[in-house]
């Protein structure tokens, strides 16, 4: 690659910079979600038994399904970049569409889950929730804040990947200029990692 023309070299420098910028943004996200996980850890340390009881209200099957869905979407996302780099645009668009679709399915599952809790009267500041013990109130508050913020990240990801899909279709993302897609992929995988931790901490502690 080094012996290529100067333009290629300049492009490669930009490429590295763009990717490093994305990683730095992800580090801020690590601290953002990290602080919420810290809050969770401190309260769980204090209200261990109540957290375990509250977690039984969550649907392990839906949680596991959503884990598999996000992992699969990540696999499609990673593959779409490899395909663009090989010039296989049609297949890459297919993989990006699959990622978007799985992201939407994830959100639908989340909607169903939240719907069930809300129908049981458990939602922020609800009378039924406020009558519960302190540990349970904190568990559900953290559950809504953390899965809500994560869901928001998934929603943003769905919109951004829709953008990269259009860019790929118009060849603005192509085999020599694919950093937009790659950075979108980095974001999507990060969102996946957040869920990898959310899943056991909320669903599997019964």
């Amino acid at each position, binding site marked *: *690659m080094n012996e290529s023309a100067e333009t290629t070299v300049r492009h490669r420098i930009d490429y590295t910079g763009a990717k*490093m910028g994305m990683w730095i943004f992800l580090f801020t996200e690590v601290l953002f979600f990290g602080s919420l996980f810290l809050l969770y850890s401190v309260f769980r340390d204090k209200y261990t038994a109540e957290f375990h009881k509250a977690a039984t209200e969550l649907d392990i099957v839906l949680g596991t399904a959503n884990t598999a869905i996000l*992992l699969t979407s*990540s*696999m499609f996302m990673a593959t779409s970049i490899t395909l663009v780099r090989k010039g296989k645009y049609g297949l890459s668009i297919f993989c990006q569409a699959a990622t978007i679709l799985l992201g939407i399915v994830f959100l639908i599952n989340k909607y169903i889950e939240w719907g069930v809790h809300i129908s049981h009267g458990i939602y922020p500041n609800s009378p039924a929730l406020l009558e519960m013990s302190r540990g349970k109130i904190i568990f559900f508050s953290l559950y809504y804040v953390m899965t809500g913020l994560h869901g928001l990240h998934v929603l943003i990801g769905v919109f951004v990947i829709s953008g990269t899909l259009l860019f790929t279709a118009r060849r603005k993302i192509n085999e020599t200029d694919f950093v937009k897609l790659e950075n979108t992929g980095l974001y999507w995988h990060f969102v996946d990692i957040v869920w990898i*931790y959310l899943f056991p901490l909320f669903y*599997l502690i019964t």
Partner: protein
Amino acid sequence: MTEKESQVQAIGPKAYIVVWLCLLALTATTVTVARLHLTAYAVIASIFIATAKAALVVTFFMHLRREPWILKIMLFLALLALTLIVLLTFSDVWIRYK
């Protein structure tokens, strides 16, 4: 694209499928372990498995293994910062409330 460039290219779809299968297997493992009700060890086990999954995603899907060393150090420092924040907070929680 030259022959040389395609050799330095990203990890192929086959490797991604293998990583994906490993991730699904680890998910099945963590669910199974949680059902064993190991109580005290359950948390450690689930965090350990989650970290293994995260490492797979970072290494292969985010292809950190092919990135320059500076990026690896940056990630290390970010995680170190988070670890320090967690340890400092817990040192306070444990000393004052226990």
